[in-house]
């Protein structure tokens, strides 16, 4: 009897154990920028919904969230340290301009075989595909892209006697408006109840990080008809008149004419956050200045109408009464890249899979889930201003989606997208971007544009090799 009891016990344990094994969940970890507007949506919707979806399909999955530091630079540092140590999340978000370097480092799973088998891949627009493709292989999936408009403050323009709506057609138009505002700054500041009025700002300095390069320097460089990388020769541009014009413009607004914040502004604290707070200051922060013109990321339009965001413009007057947008002009009409009158540039993040993951198939299931048309549409409805420029054309053409489009979304999609370009998708780009940031800081510190360009050319040569640089007229 006792013997049978023991046998039964052992059998029981075995059955129970096997059952537990079969029930054992696959655990995947996931890292996403916590400062993104849709981060809560991942926590509250995507992850539980995906877990339910997989449970129903008979493969229980648990997604663990790995929280990384914010914003971009600390996130990047944490990402790379974890990748190098082999402890990073199975699925994570990577700014698309890092994809080439990370793919070559062997950190990313090549998704080409996965997307080829996925019937929905054909809906990706070519520009979106380009952002996540490197050396002919696909390394991630993206939901949307972005563009950069120029924002201006209608209330400040009106107080300065400038026309509203406004669309500058040259750098001189921007400078002229800035001079007009500067002449009346004390008066306007008093009327608005702010400490001062800053006419214009272009992101600059080392602390600005990638924002300096992409939303400051690049927006000017493209308008001067230049690029950092010359695709025709396959070389990095060490010198060009466009580079010099860009540096000169920085010098003009920060040093020569002092049409912007003090140069030191960009070298202390968190200047990129602060400059956005200046743009949205309508008197709710009386000890801080208000900013009249800024080129920045297109999502700012939604941040300034979101009461939970620190950039919120309170009502009254509210965003629509004070903030407006226009296209960033080239130096002169037709002087931009491809002979354009106006310019902009696109970037965006991709979701990638760690090459070291033990469950690549399930990780790709998660990517498919998040990037499905239905989920993207639901996200668009839930999070105002998200997925404005979808990577999938079937979403763009969806009637429900189209009904959600605001005039601003239509402006971005129809006026800016045709003008846009991207940063060079090359391993060396992040390093070149660091040099650009340093070059703008040198201007801020009072160095002459010509001298800064000499410095840039020498440093670029040291960074990418003398055989990989070119001097253009």
């Amino acid at each position, binding site marked *: 009897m006792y013997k049978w009891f023991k046998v039964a016990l052992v059998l029981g344990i075995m059955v129970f154990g096997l059952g537990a094994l079969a029930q054992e969940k696959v655990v995947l970890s996931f890292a996403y920028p916590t400062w993104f507007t849709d981060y809560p949506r991942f926590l509250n919707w995507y992850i539980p919904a995906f877990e339910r979806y997989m449970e129903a399909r008979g493969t229980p999955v648990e997604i663990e969230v790995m929280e990384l530091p914010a914003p971009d630079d600390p996130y990047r540092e944490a990402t790379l340290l974890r990748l190098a140590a082999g402890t990073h999340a199975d699925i994570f978000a990577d700014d698309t301009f890092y994809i080439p370097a990370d793919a070559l*480092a*062997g950190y990313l799973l090549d998704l080409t075989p996965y997307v080829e088998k996925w019937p929905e891949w054909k809906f990706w627009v070519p520009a979106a595909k380009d952002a996540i493709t490197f050396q002919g292989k696909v390394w991630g999936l993206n939901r949307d892209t972005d563009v950069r408009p120029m924002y201006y403050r209608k209330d400040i323009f009106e107080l300065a006697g400038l026309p509203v709506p406004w669309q500058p057609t040259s750098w001189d138009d921007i400078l002229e408006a800035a001079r007009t505002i500067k002449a009346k700054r004390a008066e306007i500041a008093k009327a608005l109840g702010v400490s001062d009025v800053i006419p214009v700002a272009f992101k600059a300095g080392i602390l600005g990080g990638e924002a300096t390069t992409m939303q400051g320097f690049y927006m000017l460089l493209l308008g001067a008809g230049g690029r950092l990388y010359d695709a025709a020769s396959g070389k990095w541009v060490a010198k060009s008149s466009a580079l010099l014009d860009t540096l000169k413009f920085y010098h003009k607004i920060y040093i020569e004419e002092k049409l912007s914040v003090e140069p030191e*502004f960009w070298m202390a*604290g968190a200047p990129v956050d602060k400059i956005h707070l200046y743009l949205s200051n309508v008197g709710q922060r009386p000890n801080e200045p208000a900013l009249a013109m800024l080129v920045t990321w297109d999502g700012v339009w939604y941040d300034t109408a979101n009461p939970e965001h620190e950039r919120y413009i309170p009502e009254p007057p509210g965003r629509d009464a004070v903030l407006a947008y226009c296209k960033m002009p080239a130096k002169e009409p037709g002087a931009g890249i491809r002979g354009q009158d106006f310019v902009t540039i696109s970037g965006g993040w991709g979701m990638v899979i760690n090459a070291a993951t033990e469950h690549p198939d399930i990780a790709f299931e998660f990517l498919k889930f998040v990037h499905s048309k239905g989920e993207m549409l639901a996200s668009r409805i839930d999070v105002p201003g998200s997925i404005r420029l979808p990577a999938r054309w079937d979403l763009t053409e969806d009637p429900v989606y189209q009904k959600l489009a605001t005039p601003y979304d239509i402006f971005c999609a129809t006026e800016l997208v045709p003008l846009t370009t991207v940063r060079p998708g090359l391993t060396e780009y992040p390093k070149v971007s660091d040099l650009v940031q340093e070059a703008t*800081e040198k201007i801020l510190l009072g160095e002459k544009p010509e001298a800064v360009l000499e410095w840039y050319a020498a440093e670029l040569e040291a960074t990418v090799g003398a055989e990989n640089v070119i001097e253009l007229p």
Partner: protein
Amino acid sequence: MRKRLGSLAILLVPAFVLWAVFMLGPALWGIRLTFTNEALTGPAAKNPQFVGLANYHRLMRDPRFWGSVYRSFIFVSGSAIVGQAGLGLLLAVLTSERRRIWPKVKITGRLATALCWLAWVTPETLIGWCWISFLDYNGVLNQILKLFGLGPVYWMVRYGMLSIILANIWWGTGWSMMLFKAALESIPREVEEAAEVDGASPWQKFRYVVLPLLRRPIFVNVLLITIWTYGVFGLPFMMTGGGPGHRTELMTIYAYKTGFKYFEIAYGTTVSIGILFITLFLALVYHRLLGRRA
């Protein structure tokens, strides 16, 4: 005796293993790293190559590294040698309980000692935040200046090096002061009394009696704080991040940036080895000086 040595060796094993795993191992790994082109991203992250002495060649010809060596030298001279050691000695003499300079010195002296000591035992990050909130554009100093209709000034940008030197003096003076105080107390009373009998003025007594007797503690202290200060990273990094430009980029900050901003981990380690050699060289110089004086 032999048996005792044997058991001693056994007892040392756990400590040695810990030291080997957490100190020696990483150090050797670091040295190995400097002969490769290992990076945290890009092709070199996947297939690091052995590059021989290329990193050291680059270090020798790297103007940014030598610039950081120069700035570290300024930082150490200003904050450790002149500031902490000089001010520490002054404070030690002023607050010395044996030679009261003015009657109330006992209370104020003890208070000053306690305050300096308090600063020294405060964690680096806290000191960093204190100084940032003091010197920041919206900080206390500018608020005070505003009352007089002055400023505001971006102190840490415009006077970056001075800011981090002052902060480091503030942080570290307590140590030198305590060390010098202890040394002062250890000088035999009779020596000073003899000088007084010979009619020496207080200054002469200090210059010709006290100071020579303090020579050894001063040398040891300067050696210690020089080495420590060359290694300081957190406080200046928090305050200025090496900026503006590279104007406050000390050797340690440059090593950090190479490794964790530019993700060139092999070269960053090489910079650290460079720092090691420079501090080692200085330690040797001090050691020789100390030996000669003694």
